[in-house]
């Protein structure tokens, strides 16, 4: 499942909804991305996440489907927020559930790495010296590339 929303999310409630009554699940991996109050050596007051409605949903659904092709997953969820967010606010949630932890952990890492380079979101940071668009990190592209040649399990 994927959701693109302005609203916050509650990880406990999302896990409960995703896994209720599904007793073949042995492991749930998750990742939550938060707004940091620093970026490099600059203090960040807040940020605004812009996205491309329509393409965002399509890309997240494709990424999720790819994870299900690579690993045997019982359930998964991606929530990505947009709009103005402050330090400590949640940006993204990735949840994966599987019989065993290997598939849950690996697919969770895959989804967040892939989403960072494929999902059409852009961050505008508010800093003491004005607003600035966040530049893409080479490390994110490297992390995503790692999965291109790797097999799932």
């Amino acid at each position, binding site marked *: 499942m994927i959701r693109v929303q302005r609203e916050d999310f509650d990880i406990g409630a999302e896990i409960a909804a995703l896994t209720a009554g599904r007793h073949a699940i042995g492991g749930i991996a998750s990742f939550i991305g938060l707004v940091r109050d620093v970026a490099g050596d600059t203090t960040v007051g807040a940020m605004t996440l*812009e996205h*491309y409605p329509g*393409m965002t949903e399509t890309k997240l659904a494709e990424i999720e489907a790819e994870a299900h092709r690579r690993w045997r997953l019982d359930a998964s969820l991606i929530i*990505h927020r947009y709009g103005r967010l402050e330090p400590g606010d949640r940006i993204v949630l990735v949840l994966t559930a599987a019989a065993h932890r290997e598939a849950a952990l690996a697919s969770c890492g895959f989804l967040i790495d892939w989403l960072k380079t494929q999902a*059409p*979101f*852009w961050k505008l940071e508010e800093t003491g010296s004005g607003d600035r668009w966040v530049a893409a990190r080479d490390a*994110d592209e490297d992390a995503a590339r790692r999965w291109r040649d790797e097999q799932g399990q």
Partner: protein
Amino acid sequence: MKLLYFAWLRTKIGIAEEQIDLPPEVRDVGALLRWLQGRGAGFAEALKDLSVVRVAVNQDYVKFDHKLRPGDEVALFPPVTGG
């Protein structure tokens, strides 16, 4: 054809979305980008370094040799920074 601009491409060009009729000689994404560069200072500035411009046609990533058709939705944006 519908053109969409996001993030600093949008702020430099000054518009988020426009409807245009392509000249007949603009047949692919690369030709579109060169044609847009000539449409004014904002476009020239936004599109001066194409290595940081990503293009989606009908909401899917494409390369610069991708052929364009009337009615396509073409989006230009910088490398993504979500997550």
